[in-house]
């Protein structure tokens, strides 16, 4: 089957994330869509400089949108209960090790490092993108299915395949930026970490490509995909 954009089209159509992005914020939705196309084009054409620059400009806009749409979380501000726990913890240290206890528990730097780690690790969880964070849903946010879980093996294969090409590796490093930004500003964004969407979508599409050469397998996959999409949509609609 010679239709290089079919896998990308399938990836874009059969995920709830992009529809939510368009529904909640049209600008974000459009930018994500455009960036995905640009990234796909970039990998197809072997990262020529001009295309790279355009992609980076679009990506920067996405990161700015991430910052502006995220409710900022302070890295060192403590609630009364958190302060109580810290005071309790410092007391747990033996008297001659109190300075260490204070450094590990009460210093703003230690608190900030812990929160940055928490924010980053939340976004490094593959369940966040393929299983609506199930079974470790976060209590303070309504999780939603981003990509159908059936895309996961294709995402992994596509990611590996793209990373094998040395010219692509620099582009991958760029996606560390929104991760680090989220580390500092938090994850309180109903749209999720959308600057990562192009990477996920393009990798999945790349992983789907080999399957397009086998008509029966591909048809089977589409049927399965439709069923899983119905499942994801049903969970989304059920309170």
């Amino acid at each position: 089957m010679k239709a290089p954009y079919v896998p990308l089209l399938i990836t874009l159509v059969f995920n709830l994330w992009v529809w939510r992005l368009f529904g909640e914020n049209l600008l974000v939705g459009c930018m994500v869509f455009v960036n995905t196309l640009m990234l796909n084009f970039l990998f197809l054409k072997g990262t020529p400089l001009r295309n790279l620059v355009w992609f980076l400009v679009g990506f920067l806009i996405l990161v700015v949108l991430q910052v502006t749409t995220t409710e900022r979380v302070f890295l060192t501000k403590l609630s009364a209960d958190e302060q109580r726990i810290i005071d309790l913890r410092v007391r747990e240290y033996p008297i001659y090790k109190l300075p260490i206890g204070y450094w590990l528990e009460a210093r703003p730097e230690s608190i900030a490092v812990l929160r940055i780690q928490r924010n980053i690790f939340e976004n490094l969880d593959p369940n966040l993108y393929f299983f609506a964070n199930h079974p470790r849903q976060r209590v303070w946010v309504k999780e939603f299915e981003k990509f159908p879980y059936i895309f996961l093996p294709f995402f992994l294969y596509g990611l590996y395949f793209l990373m094998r090409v040395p010219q692509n590796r620099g582009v991958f490093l760029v996606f560390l930026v929104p991760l680090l930004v989220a580390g500092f500003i938090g994850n309180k964004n109903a749209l999720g970490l959308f600057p990562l969407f192009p990477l996920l979508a393009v990798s999945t599409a790349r992983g789907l490509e080999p399957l397009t050469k086998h008509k029966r397998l591909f048809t089977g996959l589409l049927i399965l995909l439709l069923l899983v999409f119905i499942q994801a949509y049903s969970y989304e609609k059920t309170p």
Partner: protein
Amino acid sequence: MKKHLNTLLLGLVLVASIFLRFYKLAEIPGGVYVDEAAIGYNALSLAETGKDEFGKNYPIFFRSLGTYSSPLYVYFVSIILRFRELDIFSVRILSAASGVIATIFVYLITRELRLFKSNPLQVLVSLIFTTFPWTVFTSRGIHEPMFAFSLLLAGAWLWLLSEKRSLYAIPSLVLFAVSTYAYQAERLIVWLLVPILFWYTGRRRTKYFAAGIILFLLIQLPQILISFTPGFSKRASGLFYLETIKEQAEKISFLPSFLTLPLSFAREFGGRFLTYLSPRSLFFEGDPDLQRSLPELASGYSWMVIPYLMGCYLLFTNWRKKNVKLITFLALISITPAALTGDPFASLRALTFSFPLAVVITLGTEKIRDHTPRLLFSFLFLGVVVGSGLYLWRSYFILLPNERAKAWGYGFEELAERIAKDQGTHYLIDQTRIKPAYIELAFYWKYPPKELQKRWGQETLKNYYTDTKFDSYYKFANVETRSVIWEEDIYREQIIVGDKFTISEEQAKEHFLTKVFEIKDKLDEEVIFLGYQTDPVKKCEFTRFANERCKKN
């Protein structure tokens, strides 16, 4: 010289392993968890009478607490009790020793698999394995998983040796079979692992392999014989999330149930399976169960995420190598039993995954080392070793004994001492929320097993594996354990023991109950037990002897 360096490094790793597992073993975790008490007491019962707490002769699975837990650890502790008295050290020592033994086998297996170019990297796998918070924690108070894992590793190493000498296949398969009696997860893992090992070493038609298989099946016979009883499947069926699958299937619109059920299962299983590979679960959040985790520390250290991701990539790129395939398959089958249970991250059931995880992290570390200036790498390596040690010390030796004391049964020792000193008073321990108190008290008192066995008759023994209901009601010594019956218990002269929710201030006032003792946690913050003395005379006078019990008294 290089050989001596390797031996020296391994020696240092073992010293670290022994220290991390034996230092203050009896004191940390503080308290005796109910499962530990059950293991210890049943071991005592076996040692003294040859029967468990119910009076069953050498059971295949222990019915204690209605869990039908794996028996091997209890049998080994009963041997230890022939040389030591029953205390928490006697119960924990086998698990701690298993952790050290597992470290040795991790090194040996890594060497046999020839995964790394240099020998020190094989030692690094052992170092990472032995210093994982995951393995330190499970060596020091969770017992069965690490014991079973050490048997499994021993079996795996012998299997790899059987490539050169087939005779080793016999002890290998025997150890695999025996490990299924040590922990529940091994019952599934072994059956998945053995075919994979056959594939790895190629088909073997020697008499030794045949003998090994026969012995393997013979050892499995006791389990097979009771496999159709509710007791055999109780643990597994209780943990499997069948109800969740059905609920989620009902939410799916427009599709018939023969499609919605498999879809629902795929999502539930897939989500749980992936959690065990997620950096968030492995290196930041860990097990949500307070008794099965460390405060502020996950199964691994947060810095490990970088070599972990690198190592995962390297598994892909080196997929054609047989030893890489083996590690990958081992990782996937290690997670399977845990992914079939409802817990979001059951660290105990997935303990076997700690070995392939250590290998993957070392693969990633090797790659990083190859692309980093030597001095910088040495500096970073030293930094992570010191940092990891500091955070392990903080979580395990400072925070755990204080914050998680209640989760580990802290308070029962003091309660047992108090009740023992007050033999003339009847104590009623409320079981609405408190873990089964009878086994904790029996443990601390070393209560004569023959006396406790008297509670159970022939009917219980006959239905040992079929009647799986757990009854927390016990009456022995001067203690009774059950839920409070308000219409009766306040009219009896006794002390009612409960948690802070058992008796409110209003109830205490209404029923003329006087608080006589309070047991708090180690931080002196949270109340664990409260004891209230009843006053039937005042209560009867107040109610004008309306209650029948007043007339009886």
